[in-house]
């Protein structure tokens, strides 16, 4: 299916409350998109923002949205039948190994693209170990879905309210000493991603990470999401990068550019 570069208006079919802050918006439309790719979602009158695409079996597609700013709060106020505009899918996607076991390291809303990846991995019978971190138990996403499809879930919460007390990367470090993972997939806050990649480099495990940068056009033209030192566009060559590509991204874990083009430290 062709990608859509002019916003396509789609009505919300169903809304699921995932947690105190997160809602999933489901659309009855077979939007193209692989795990790791994103769509630009236009909330008319507010803004247009990138969200990782999720295509759960039996549904068109969905996005999960945390109400954190004006736009996402406005989105949370919307009802079934209300219209949003979508472009995409954009960017590179995750590449699963053919067999063996994989680890997913998800921090916060990083669960969105990784849940879709977990589903695709289970379809081809990979062993999937999930190391998911959240502030507290209530903010862990898709736990029922993940267990239902046979993902081995390991949770870490900052407040110790569920599972390991601490960071999911610490939990992963414990498991990596005693288990063999063919490939690791990492999505979360950049500091978590940085820590996770360091463990993988140390243990020489191949990985892919999704690097989030401020987006404008989404299709490789404006240069807003280009990273140092390669100049790669995170909407085309990224956001999913592998262990060798990431080594060339010298700004990873250090800084990014803001919407004005100014450098902002992590």
């Amino acid at each position: 299916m062709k990608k859509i570069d002019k916003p396509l208006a789609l009505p919300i079919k169903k809304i699921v409350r995932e947690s105190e802050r997160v809602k999933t918006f489901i659309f009855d439309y077979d939007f193209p998109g692989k795990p790791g790719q994103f769509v630009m979602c236009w909330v008319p009158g507010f803004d247009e923002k990138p969200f990782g695409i999720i295509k759960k079996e039996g549904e068109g597609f969905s996005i999960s949205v945390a109400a954190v700013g004006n736009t996402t709060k406005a989105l949370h106020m919307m009802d079934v039948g209300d219209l949003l505009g979508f472009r995409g899918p954009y960017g590179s996607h995750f590449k699963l190994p053919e067999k063996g076991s994989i680890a997913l390291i998800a921090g916060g809303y990083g669960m969105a693209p990784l849940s879709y990846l977990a589903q695709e991995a289970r379809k081809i019978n990979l062993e999937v170990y999930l190391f998911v971190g959240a502030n507290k138990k209530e903010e862990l996403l898709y736990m029922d879905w993940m267990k239902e499809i046979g993902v081995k879930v390991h949770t870490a919460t900052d407040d110790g309210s569920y599972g390991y007390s601490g960071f999911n990367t610490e939990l992963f470090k414990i498991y990596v000493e005693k288990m063999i993972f063919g490939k690791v997939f990492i999505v979360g806050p950049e500091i978590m991603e940085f820590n996770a990649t360091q463990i993988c480099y140390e243990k020489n495990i191949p990985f892919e990470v999704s690097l989030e940068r401020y987006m404008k056009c989404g299709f490789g033209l404006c240069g807003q999401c280009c990273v140092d030192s390669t100049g790669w566009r995170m909407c085309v060559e990224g956001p999913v990068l592998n262990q060798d590509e990431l080594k060339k991204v010298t700004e990873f874990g250090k800084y990014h550019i803001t919407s004005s083009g100014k450098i902002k430290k992590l």
Partner: protein
Amino acid sequence: MLDLSVNLLGKKLQNPLILASGIMGVSVSSLKYVIQNGAGAVIFKSIGPDERTGHKNPTVFSFEGGIQNAVGLSNPGIDNSTEKLKEAVSTLSVPVIGSMFAENVNNFKIVAEKMAKTGVAAIEVNLSCPNTEDDFGRMFALEPKVTGEVIRAVKSVVGKTPIIAKLSAESPDIVEVAKSAEEAGADAITAINTISGMFIDIKHKRPILTNKYGGISGPVIKPMGVKAVYNIYKAVKIPIIGTGGVNTGEDALEYIMAGAAAIGVGSGVYFRGIDVFKKISDEIIVFMENEGYKSLNEIRGVVHKN
């Protein structure tokens, strides 16, 4: 091997293809990536007196035949940009052209003076951004007189740095504007900028862009660009950077035959990928070989003789 090199404003370009302002030119790394893909020179994204975050998204989308954008001149401000410009000039392998805008003559002078000191190969004066009318009023390039005033002011503070006036086909008479820019001391002309338009999403019942209207680029504006270059070429002696809808070697050749000294490539990065520069160069070479030409000088402005 056929030579595509051109001399422009005292610099030698390996090929006539210049990355147009506003595309990719946010960082030194992004420009390096464009150069690796075959650009003969690069123009930075426009820089103004102060930091601007630009308009809220949607700021860019594409339609059959073109791109519409109203990014809103997002930039870090000249004072946050001079180090980056110096780094680009000293590390990149092709001429680096700065681009600037301002809301009044005095600020044009302030930005231009600081930009000239970074050592850029030239400064393109953006007199024709169609997307900031609410903040900045109507574009300068609509009027010959106003254009002349800005160019004269900029020229007075930049020393030997060449100045390029970026003009708009929205002007009632772009030829008169170009003549006025030349008289005021402009060293080259870029023609054309995007052309303002509007798209309405009929389901949402509102314009798509947050700014409501925005500049149209890409193949749909190429005929307007070629016409502008054709007419300006007859009226001025300074070189013209023909810009607007160049996706292929054939497109570039149309501009060169109309009289363009060099070619701006922008939306082509979307339509054909980041290696659009290499592709266009290759296509120009194939045409010239088939037609038995050795140099672009043999075909520049050729339509004026026919």
